[in-house]
């Protein structure tokens, strides 16, 4: 039998501390831990980024592949998002066990990118109806100290923003790579912000120990223009509609803060994105 030592003592501590607006690691309820973004680590990938939020570490890589379009959108490229839990990231990850947590993570990261139309897939068509670029966006969880969704989303985004794509030349039915590179057709910088509900408080960017005692998780992604582009409530607790509204308000502010960080880290001309 699985021995779940319900960390009731720790939960009590965390809630008590939160009454005075503070957390175990010294943060306020709306603080993120330190965020670092390093791009270009994997030179063989079309784009890559190593992102950490506090101790949580995720690497993302982008690979291009020539493939078939979906029959219903024959002139658009395909973006495929995958998430892998490297077993050394946490004692709880077992090798080779595809897990609903990894599936959910991949799909939430995917939706954040896809629904904001971060990638203009109409520009990834090679031979209409026949061949398109498949863009693989894979995130690998290297160290799990809480808030995987935001870290993974940020890694995937940073890898895409820093990526260049192969230039292809179409000669009849043949696709020839010129060996040159061109920028990716990126149109937005969507940012995902996750909060934990513990007791009746909301904790931005929950740490591992906060996640162990949370009621539920709430993630929301914002486009540059402030529109919401993805929401995901997670875990087996509940949240009130009023808390949802509050969470969205907080997340909106934090998303702008993080987007600024991304723009600075990647030395993007923020206004340039959106034109592609």
């Amino acid at each position, binding site marked *: 039998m699985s021995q779940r030592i319900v960390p009731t003592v720790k939960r009590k501590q965390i809630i008590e501390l939160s009454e005075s607006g503070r957390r175990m690691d010294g943060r306020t309820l709306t603080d993120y831990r330190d965020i670092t973004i390093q791009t270009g680590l994997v030179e063989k990938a079309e784009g890559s980024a190593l992102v950490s939020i506090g101790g949580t570490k995720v690497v993302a890589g982008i690979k291009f592949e020539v493939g078939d379009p979906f029959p219903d959108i024959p002139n658009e490229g395909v973006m495929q998002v995958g998430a892998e839990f490297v077993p050394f990231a946490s004692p709880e990850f077992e090798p080779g066990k595809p897990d609903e947590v990894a599936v959910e993570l991949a*799909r939430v990261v995917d939706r954040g990118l896809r629904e904001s139309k971060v990638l203009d897939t109409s520009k990834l068509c090679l031979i209409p109806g026949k061949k398109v670029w498949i863009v693989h966006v894979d995130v690998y969880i290297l160290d799990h100290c809480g808030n995987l969704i935001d870290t993974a989303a940020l890694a995937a985004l940073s890898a895409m923003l820093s990526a260049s794509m192969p230039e292809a030349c179409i000669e009849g039915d043949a696709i020839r790579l010129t060996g040159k590179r061109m920028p990716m057709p990126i149109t937005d910088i969507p940012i995902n912000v996750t909060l934990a509900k513990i007791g009746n408080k909301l904790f931005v960017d929950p740490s591992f120990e906060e996640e162990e005692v949370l009621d539920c998780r709430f993630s929301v992604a914002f486009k540059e223009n402030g529109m*919401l582009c993805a*929401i*995901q409530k997670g875990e087996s607790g509940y949240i009130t509609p009023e808390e*949802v509204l509050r969470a969205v308000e907080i997340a909106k502010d934090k998303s702008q803060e993080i987007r600024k960080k991304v723009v600075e880290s990647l030395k993007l001309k923020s206004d340039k994105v959106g034109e592609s």
Partner: protein
Amino acid sequence: MSESKIERLISEDGIRCDGRKLDEIRPIKFQLGVLKNTDGSAYVEWGRTKILVGVMGPRESHPKHLALSDKARVEAYYRMASFSVEEWKSPAPSRREVELSKVIREALEPAIFVEFFPRTSIDIFIEVLQADGSTRCASISAASLALVDAGIPMRDLVASIAVGKVEGKLVLDVQDKEDKAGESDMPMAYMPSKNAVTLLQMDGQITHEEFLQSIELLKKGCMEVYKKQKEAIENHFKSAVSNGEEA
């Protein structure tokens, strides 16, 4: 997605392609106690969406090492029949089915007094016979009734519905056609007496203002589903009594 955009989904006087008003839900028909080999079951026809739910448990956990010492282990299995969608679907669970199984479980577990049944399992099996939009909402709503049918004590029923944005307008209870052509989809699951949101997801793009309106619309929609759930329970136990048998 392959729907031609020329076909309008909402008429100028705010009527949707199937004749509904913007905030009108589809006909919903719940039925409890439809299966013989489960501890509880329910069937729902939600527009053209048709789903069967069976509950097994509380029963001994298998394998045993997965049992929890302080509460029942709840699992949900959301599966679509191969013929339930436009294109034939392989019976192997897709990543979508895996994720939906997880969020459905997380939507239902807060309603169950899991602490009453340590060391046991409660398995919720969902089979979508026909998918025409909002299958997760219909699944959650029907599963609540199957849990009631199984006699499992609940804090409240979980009612669920989705709001979509279609041609710039918020519409309640999106069907498949609206979902595919629409700009967003936002399903919510809700326990009214607890004011508790147990599922909330969103795809697509909406403004903050639309988000606020959506939440209101979702609450209204959930209350309507909730009413239908209660009626179904009442009818079920009434007929059980009149048949002189246990439900």
